[in-house]
Every structure is written in C-alpha cells, then in structure tokens.
C-alpha cells in the first residue's frame, strides 16, 4: 500500500519540479488577451469580451480584471511582454506622469482609442426627498476647503442653500485610485470652484494652490469612499434614502428602478444630455493598447474591432449605458486601429 502511495507522490514531486519552468516559458507568449483597468469601463469590456468569444467559440476569452484606472495604468506601464497587460481601460485620459513612467519601462508605443462617453452621474434613492443641485452647491458640499476659505463645516444641505432638503450631507463616491474620482475632480468640482473669480484667477498664478482648493475632497463623515465598486454604491443608496451617490451613468441606466439621477444645474443625467454635452458631468472613456502586442497576441485586432462595433450608435454597448462617440470621431478611431498610430506624449497634461 505504501508503495502505491509513494508512486502517487512521485508524479506530484515531478509536477512541482517541472511546472515552474513550464510556466515561465508560457511567459514569452500567451494565447489570450489580458485587460486591466477602470471599473467604469469594466461592464462594457466584459460585454465585448463575451461577444468576442461568441463570435467564434474557438477564440480564447480575454482575461479582464477591474483594478481602477490608476492601478491598471500602473500594471500596463510596467513593461512590454507577455507578463504585462495588453490593454488598459481608462475612464480618463492617461496622465503625463503615467505616460513618462510607461516610456521609462519601454512602453513607448501606446495606441489611444476613444470608445465613447460616459457621464458621472449623481444619483439618489427613489425613496429619498428629491434634490437638485448646482455645480457650486455640489462643490461646496464636497470640497475639503470650499473656495480656500478654511475647512468645510457644512453638515446638512441647508447649511449650503436653505432651499435644499433638510437632511445630512451623506455622499458615497469613488476612492482616489479611481478614474471616476479624477473625472469628478477635474470636470464637476473644478467647474464649481471656478465660479469664484478669485479662485479662477489662481489657476494661472498658483497652480498648486488651485488644485488644493479645487480638487481635494473632504475626508470627514460627509463623504464615504466605497472602493472600486459602483454596484456597492447603488446598494448603499437604496438603504440610505437621504444619501447621494457618485458613479458612472451606465450604472444609473442599469438601476433605473431603484435610483434616480440628481439634476446638476437643472440638467438630468440622460443619454441625450450627456451626448449633447449639456450635462456638466460628461467624460470620455479610453482604452490604451500596446502596439508591440498587436499581431503577437492573437485576436487583439479583432477585439478592438469588436469594441468599436459594440460602441456604434445602436450597438449593444449603448444598450448598457455607453454613450456613442460622434461619427467623425469614430471613423478617426477606426483609422487608428487600422494604422496602429501611437500616442504622442506631448499632447498630454
């Protein structure tokens, strides 16, 4: 019996011995696409990945991980080769500092593709008192030091504007690694903050101070960051009728039975208002691809083409909340996929 057991163990030891080199060999080529990045783009990428495989069941499914834009770009920029992701999904444009890190690690061939738009939606439970905000009011509620005049002391909405419903300010939103958070700071908060001419003047004279005033979100109990999980915010809203949540428009569209959009400057977050640019919280969604990986990793071209097909005006991605890019931009992106022209770092900030 022991002999039998010993024979059973032998292959185990062999396996332990030979798996390691085998897996490092695997490192030099890979049969599936690897994607990391934004939790906002994640549901779209998931859908595209599913369609990509459905189209031809012989294809291997892409591997998708939701890491947040910041975390995803870090993995993406860690180098070229089969152990690094091929694509990063981003809910904001890549930053200059990130791009430089990419260059330092030999990732100098990034193709930038705009897949469409998304709105940063403010939403609340359908059971809560209806609330409507202006960008100033929202900025005043959310900023660590509104207009640079000392720490934020507003606890209830009427502290900001007596006309607002008398409930505690309780905002659920994304953490600082999230692209949604960057977009929130750069799109909505900055607009609110610039309404004060003194602060707007800072943007030219003292850039650092301007960012501190306009981009820092308060850290007390009025703002809760819920991690890279937009679903969690939706769930929290339905149990806290007084709270306001910040997440991507696609989640609002998906959960229209439990939450409703909060109008900003009187404009509700809807497909039409985001597409027209009327809604102040609209932003662009990107994917970044390594040119050196195209044609090495099988199916990468087809995956990109599938993404563009899904993002058409009545494509399946628009049905789950993506807002399609205008035709002119789309044809430019299709050209980029065909010619694989890479991103010039000089255009970034």
């Amino acid at each position, binding site marked *: *019996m*022991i002999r039998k*057991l*010993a024979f059973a*163990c032998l*292959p*185990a*030891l062999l*396996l*332990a011995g030979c*798996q*390691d080199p*085998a*897996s*490092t060999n*695997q*490192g030099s080529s*890979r049969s*599936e696409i*690897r994607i990391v990045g934004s939790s906002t783009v*994640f*549901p779209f990428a*998931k*859908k595209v*990945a*599913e*369609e990509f*495989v*459905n189209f031809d069941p012989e294809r*291997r*499914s*892409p*591997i*998708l*991980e*939701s890491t947040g834009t910041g975390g995803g770009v870090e993995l993406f920029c860690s180098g070229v080769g*089969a*152990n690094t992701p091929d694509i990063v999904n981003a809910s904001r444009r890549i930053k200059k500092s990130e791009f430089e890190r990419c260059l330092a690690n030999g990732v100098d061939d990034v193709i930038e593709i705009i897949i469409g738009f998304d709105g940063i939606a403010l939403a609340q439970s359908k059971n809560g008192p209806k609330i409507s905000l202006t960008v100033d009011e929202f900025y005043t509620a959310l900023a660590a030091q509104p207009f640079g005049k000392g720490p934020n002391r507003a606890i209830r909405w009427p502290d900001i504007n007596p006309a607002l419903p008398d409930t505690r300010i309780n905002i659920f939103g994304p953490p600082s690694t999230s692209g949604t958070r960057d977009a929130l700071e750069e799109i909505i908060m900055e607009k609110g903050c610039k309404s004060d001419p003194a602060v707007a003047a800072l943007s030219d004279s003292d850039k650092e101070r301007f960012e501190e005033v306009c981009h820092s979100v308060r850290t007390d109990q009025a703002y809760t960051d819920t991690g890279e*999980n937009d*679903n*969690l915010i*939706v*769930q929290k809203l339905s149990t806290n009728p007084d709270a306001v949540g910040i997440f991507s428009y696609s*989640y609002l569209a*998906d*959960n229209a*039975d439990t939450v409703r959009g909060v109008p900003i400057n009187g404009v509700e977050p809807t497909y039409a208002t985001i597409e027209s640019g009327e809604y102040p919280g609209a932003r662009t969604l990107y994917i970044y691809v390594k040119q050196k990986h195209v044609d090495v990793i099988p199916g990468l071209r087809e995956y990109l083409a599938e993404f563009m097909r899904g993002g058409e005006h009545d494509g*399946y991605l628009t049905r789950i909340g993506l807002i399609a890019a205008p035709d002119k931009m789309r044809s430019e992106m299709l050209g980029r996929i065909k010619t694989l022209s890479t991103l010039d770092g000089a255009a970034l900030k």
Partner: protein
Amino acid sequence: MTETVSMPANLPAPASGARKTDWMGQTMQKRIASRYAAERRFKFMGLAAVVLSSLFLAFLLFVMVGNGAKGFITTEATLTVDMPAATGSISAEQLTGPRLSATIASIDVRRIYDNAVQAQYGKDGSRFFASTAWTALRAQLTENPDLILGKAKFWLPTSSDIDRAAKDTSTPEAEADYAQLRQAGEVRQTLNWNFLTGSDGTDPAQVGIWGSLKGSLITMVVTLFLAFPVGVLAAVYLEEYAAKNRLTDLIEVSINNLAAVPSIIFGLLGLAVFLQFFAMPRSAAIVGGLTLALMTMPVIVIASRNAIKAVPPSIREAAMGVGASPIQVVFHHVLPLAIPGIMTGTIIGMARALGETAPLLMIGMRAFTTTPPDGFTDPATVLPVQIFLWSDEVNRGFVEKTSAAIIVLLVFLLTMNAVAVYLRNRFETRW
C-alpha cells in the same frame, strides 16, 4: 428531584469533635436540590447549544437550497426558424463529414436569429430572449445539423427578467410578457444544463459554473500534490529522524505559527514571490495552487506529526527487533498506522483551501473570463471567488445563481471529503 437521599445504615461513627451530618435536614436537602438543579441547567444549556447550531445549519441549508434550486431551472421560449429561407440552399451533402464545420461557420446565425425574432415577436422581440440567446441557437444547430435543412422550432433561454417572472415576481413589463408567452404556450421550464456546463458571462440567464468548478479542481490538484508529500515528509523527518534540540523546537514553533497565519498574508506572499519574483502568469491556477499549498502544508505537518506520535513505540521496537532498518520501520509500520490521522488532517486543510477567497484575489484570480481553464497555467477563477463576484452583481437574476453556485461548492466539498473518508477507512489498520 423527588428521590430522597437515604442515609447509609452503617455509617461509621463521626470522629470526635466533628458534628454529625444531618442528611435529612432542611439545609442539606436544599443543598442537594441546588446541585441537581445545576446539573439539569448544564444539561439544558448543552442541549440548547446543540439545537441552536443545528438550527443555524438547517436555516443555512434551507435558504441556500430554497434560493439555489431555482438556479438549476431555466425558462425557455420557442423560436421558429425557417432555415432554408434564411440560408439559401444548403444541400444535405454539405452537412457531411469534414465540410460540416465550414458550413456552419458560413451561416450568419446571429442575423438569422435577429430576423426570426422580429418575425415572430415583433420589432422589439429581442426583449423576450437572453442577450446572447443566438449562441444557444448555434449550439443546437451544431449538435443537430439536420435542422439546417428544414423549418424548425427551437427552445431558447428567455431574458433574466422573464425567467424571474416565471419563478416568482419580476418587473410589471416582464410579468406581462411572460403571461403573453404562457397564453400562447410558447414557454417552458427545464433543467438548466448550461449552468453546469457553461462559464461566467454578463447575462444571468446564460452564466454557468463549469469554468470556476474546473478552476477549483485544477487548483486543488496542485495544492494536494504539493502540500501532501511535502507535509508528510516534513512530519516524518521531524518525528522520526530529527535530533531533539533547540533548532527542532524552533522549527516546530514556526510551523505551528504558520498554521495560524491569516490567509490574506499568504496571498501577499504569493503576489510577491510567485508573481513578482518568479514572474509567473497572473490569475493562473498554478499560482493559486502554490499559494494555497503554502497555507495547507503546516496544517498537514501538524496533523501528521500527531498521528505519527500516536503510533505506539512497541511497534517500532518490535520491527527493529526483527531487523528492520529505520526506513523500513517508517514505511512498513509507522506510516500505515498513521495514515488515518494524516488523512484527517489533509481533509481539514484541503477543505479550508477549497473555501479560500482572499489570497486568490491578491494574485488576480478574480478576473473575468468565459473560457474554462485547460491547464495549470491557464487563467482561472475558483468557486468561492465566483460566488463572491456574483454576489456583487446588481442584476437580481444573479441572486439565485449565487445560491446555486454555493450548492455546487458544498456538493464539491462533500464529495471531496467523502472520497477522503473512504480512502481513510480503506487504509486504516487496526492492531
């Protein structure tokens, strides 16, 4: 408490100075009564603890089976497709032998599906079906190519909302759609084979558990084949060969501590060592298996050492006495007697590894993929992580799928334990 304590008749006379105990006196009776009461209280509390824990277990199983059973059922609606009209003329001989796959690949099933749905259910008819129901149509055509030659009725999965309407309550629109389908007799409920054979997806009506089940299986194989031999060999060496000194004591304490380290730490270790230092592929089953093996090994070492310790020294001495070498003593006598204990330790360790989520999240095994893993280096996810991911989904169709996945995990666990118990009983030697 009605029994009275009778005093023994021939009680020896009390020592001088000591007062005679008045057993029948009121104080003594009270004291005896309180002792009996304490006894009953203790028994009652013990029983209550057992009842409470079984109630919890029953509640858990009841809720899981109640919710999850529905996950194994799917709702299907009919779609009539006139294949010859849609595909032009495909002859019977095009469906023979090697030409079959090329023929099926040449058919644009998605377009045919879209047209058929619009023809039968109107312009907005796709709302009745799951978002990728056309893949089910293609699967049926591939399985039974003769259907391509005629007009046929296909059963395809309905949308998740209609599925919920068929099982309990759903949105008013879906309820109306379901009532309409039922009236026409175009809907049925059947066993959801796709749930057992399919992989992760975006539409709860068409997700399956096979991908993560296979991932769990592969990961467990790696874990077992590493942790079991290494753990048992370490235990044998420490018990039978190692000199008893400071160093051995230090190793023993370290192993005991290692067994108590929270699993998330092993995840970080796996991330730092396997992914960053050895540059192994992210999300791969082998990395998960290695990480879990690190976690399981100390448990096996400790259990095996105790089992080896429990083998009576007389057995060793008798074997030595008839001239067996130390290695013969170990492999012919000690290990066979210790195997049941070693197996028990291994079962506990493996069961813990099977249910582990946190360390696997650290090494990227939470990735979304719709292709089941084929080997040790393929990206995979495991059952508990799949349950975690589905429980996070907002779409209500995922609730029953989550519970159904829990049932699959429990069945997997019970099967694994049953095999181990069977092996243990087979190898058990009595003396």
